[in-house]
């Protein structure tokens, strides 16, 4: 239960060997490289060294990584190969890794093709759309069987055009017969908005005819750049569309073929990410003309391995290993036993402890365990939660945060099971409901739905214990740092005062004891809480004022009533689900409804309540528990190592190290 001590490392080497040394350090993978920019403000350093700038290179690598990622994302849409729900990292032989890196250009070509694919595909689709809308605009003219380029003959003019649907066709006919006898027109088609006309007249009468037509709202339609009949043109475009569709299909097919390359591209992606990490590490060094200097930290547990690995180095370089100075902040690595480890994720999400602070995880863990289970409190749900997270851990083999989170859920499931059994919740009251009350699983302790006040009391008592533990940690920290009086004044006296108050509330014979305890505690607090002030009156007022913190403590304790509320919520919702399920009785439809309600309902209930339990247990830890003593603000220990997303490189050295 503690923060791992770190050893300070300084490496000074020749500029020429820099790249190789950095690569070696990456393979060793235990050194946390510190940022040296603070050194640059130190006057004794500024004259000597400069920062190794390589931002351009890193920028280039980042944009390369973006490109590779874009192509991977694109392939994902077309990959027909079924992906497992729990995908884990593949292991790739070092030789294969090498061969892929050596064929850089080939893979870049593939990536280019994939990234251009989207654009090409869109272009084709656009073209297809254009043609389709063209066909739609032509289709009213379909029955026009004269070639469209024919606008006049020796003696006649031919017009095509539209008039509004509301135009008076009979009037037009009559007027034409009366005024321009050398003409005729035909309505080829009509729709809701307009009528489609073709008009033929003698050449000499063209102007007169057009004048009359204009009065009826005639608009000339001219088919530019077209020859042949409309029907022929439509057929032509349809053929073009077919061709485009073929092209689209072949493109999609070629993308699907490229999916086989996906694994290679993933390896390529990891390679670039590692490369970028390496370059970024280079940016954290300081250099002179011929040498470079690097600073970092190695955890105590890894220092022997680090020494041994670096002792084989052939380069001219100097490695200095020292203990951290008093009060010097170093990166934080937590080391806890296997049971506590999963709970670290809760602290990590809040803030890591800083150097010299107590790692709160081992004290927090049992409370988290108890509270989480109390909030879900259903034996059936607990079994399911543990089962699902165990399967996920087994299949996914996750690392880091996800691993801890899943293990936390596994443990939470066990706690949920225990509390569920204590309170008699097995998927709510499903057994009672199904058997119509004949069989009832008795709670091992009591049923909170029948006696909520009892559980409320227990929730508050647990809350009080949690808060006492937090104050205890504060005292322990003070004692460890040699401030024994602080521990007695700030925690011991509060214990007396608050315990007294609690007993007073409980009443009876203990109540009298409590009364005196509270009075003595209050006096002691008034005398000591203002000790930081110099003025006697201020000492006194501050001491009296500090008693007000008791109100804060009360409200903190009341906050634990959520243990009851969320526990009840799970139970009530579960029994509602069961009631709905058994509503239709014991027949075929009833059984179907029961199964549907049972699975759908309980899965929903587990999800929403496990989320709620996690969130609110965390809140109790963050606000009520950590609020009493915890400062946090530590920087995590992030060793400089090969950090991949898709693959593990199967390196002989790595294998040996793991075993």
């Amino acid at each position, binding site marked *: 239960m503690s923060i791992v001590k770190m050893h300070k490392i300084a490496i000074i080497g020749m500029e020429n060997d820099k790249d190789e040394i950095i690569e070696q350090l990456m393979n060793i993978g235990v050194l946390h490289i510190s940022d040296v920019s603070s050194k640059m403000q130190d006057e004794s350093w500024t004259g000597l060294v400069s920062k190794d700038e390589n931002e351009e290179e890193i920028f280039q690598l980042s944009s390369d990584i973006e490109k590779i990622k874009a192509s991977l994302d694109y392939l994902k849409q077309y990959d027909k190969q079924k992906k497992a729900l729990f995908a884990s990292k593949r292991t790739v032989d070092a030789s294969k890794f090498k061969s892929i890196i050596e064929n850089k250009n080939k893979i870049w070509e593939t990536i280019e093709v994939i990234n251009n694919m989207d654009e090409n595909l869109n272009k084709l689709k656009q073209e297809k759309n254009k043609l389709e809308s063209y066909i739609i605009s032509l289709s009213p003219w379909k029955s026009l069987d004269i070639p469209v380029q024919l606008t006049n003959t020796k003696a006649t003019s031919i017009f095509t055009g539209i008039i509004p649907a509301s135009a008076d066709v009979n009037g037009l006919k009559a007027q034409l017969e009366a005024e321009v006898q050398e003409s005729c027109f035909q309505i080829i088609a009509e729709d809701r908005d307009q009528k489609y006309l073709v008009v033929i007249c003698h050449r000499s009468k063209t102007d007169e005819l057009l004048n009359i037509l204009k009065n009826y709202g005639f608009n000339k339609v001219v088919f530019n750049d077209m020859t042949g009949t409309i029907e022929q043109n439509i057929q032509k475009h349809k053929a073009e569309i077919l061709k485009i569709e073929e092209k689209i299909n072949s493109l999609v097919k070629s993308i699907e073929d490229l999916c086989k390359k996906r694994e290679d591209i993933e390896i390529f992606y990891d390679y670039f990410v590692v490369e970028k990490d390496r370059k970024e590490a280079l940016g954290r060094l300081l250099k002179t003309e011929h040498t470079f200097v690097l600073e970092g930290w190695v955890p105590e547990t890894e220092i022997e391995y680090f020494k041994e690995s670096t002792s084989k180095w052939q380069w001219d370089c100097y490695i200095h290993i020292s203990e951290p100075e008093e009060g010097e902040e170093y990166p934080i690595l937590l080391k806890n036993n296997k049971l506590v480890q999963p709970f670290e994720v809760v602290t990590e*999400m809040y803030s890591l402890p800083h150097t010299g602070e107590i790692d709160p995880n081992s004290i927090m863990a049992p409370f988290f365990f108890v509270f989480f289970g109390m909030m879900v409190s259903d034996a059936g749900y607990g079994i399911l939660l543990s089962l699902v997270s165990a399967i996920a851990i087994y299949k996914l083999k996750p690392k880091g945060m996800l691993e801890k989170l899943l293990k936390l859920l596994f443990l939470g499931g066990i706690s949920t099971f225990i509390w569920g059994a204590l309170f008699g919740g097995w998927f709510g009251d499903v057994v009672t409901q199904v058997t119509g009350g004949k069989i009832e699983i008795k709670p091992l302790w009591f049923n909170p739905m029948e006696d909520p006040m009892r559980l409320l009391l227990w929730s508050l008592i647990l809350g009080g214990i949690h808060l006492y533990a937090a104050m205890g940690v504060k005292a322990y920290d003070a004692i460890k740092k040699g401030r024994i009086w602080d521990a007695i004044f700030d925690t011991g006296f509060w214990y007396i005062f608050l315990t007294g108050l609690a007993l007073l509330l409980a009443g009876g014979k203990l109540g009298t004891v409590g009364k005196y305890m509270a009075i003595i505690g209050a006096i002691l607090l008034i005398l000591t809480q203002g000790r930081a002030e110099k003025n006697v009156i201020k000492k006194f007022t501050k001491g009296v004022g500090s008693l007000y913190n008791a109100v804060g403590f009360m409200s903190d304790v009341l906050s634990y009533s959520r243990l009851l509320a969320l526990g009840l*919520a799970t139970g009530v919702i579960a029994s509602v689900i069961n009631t709905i399920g058994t509503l239709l009785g014991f027949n075929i439809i009833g059984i179907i409804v029961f199964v549907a309600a049972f699975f759908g309902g309980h899965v929903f209930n587990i999800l*929403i309540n496990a989320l*709620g339990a996690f*969130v*609110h247990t*965390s809140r109790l830890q*963050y*606000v009520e528990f950590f609020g009493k003593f915890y400062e946090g603000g530590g920087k995590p220990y992030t060793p400089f190592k090969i950090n991949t997303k898709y693959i593990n490189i199967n390196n002989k050295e790595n294998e040996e190290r793991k075993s």
Partner: protein
Amino acid sequence: MKLLEVLLNGQFLALLGAAFAVIFAGLGSARAVGMVGEVAAGLVTEEPDRFSQTLLLQALPGTQGIYGLLTAFVILFRIGIIGGTPAELSTVQGVLFLVASLPIAIVGYKSAIAQGKAAAAGVGIVAKRPQELAKAITFAAMVETYAILALLGSILMVFGIKI
């Protein structure tokens, strides 16, 4: 005077309480969840990977609606509409159930919207620093405390009413 008789009927008043709990807490949650959804959708257009994180934030202000339903069910259990024969309730008893539903109805409505705002702002945290999701969740969960207290108040009252 038939109407007055109905209005003063104990069963009616108790049911009215159950309805209030469901209606107002549900309304609040619906608005809040919608609010977070809008903001989250904006982020997901740019960063589809953040879907699950934002979904978590969106789910948070949804609990008030559940608490409302829960209170309603407890009332329905107590007055025997579910799983039993409807109990004879006096007007006073009916009013008591109605009053018992008020905490979760009113606080549920308001706190859901307030929590929705906090969660929507939390989406902003996830947008810029996805690793800080826990803090965004904690901010929203701080608001939920009061919905839980209201639920607790309502439920204890409902359990405590003598029939």
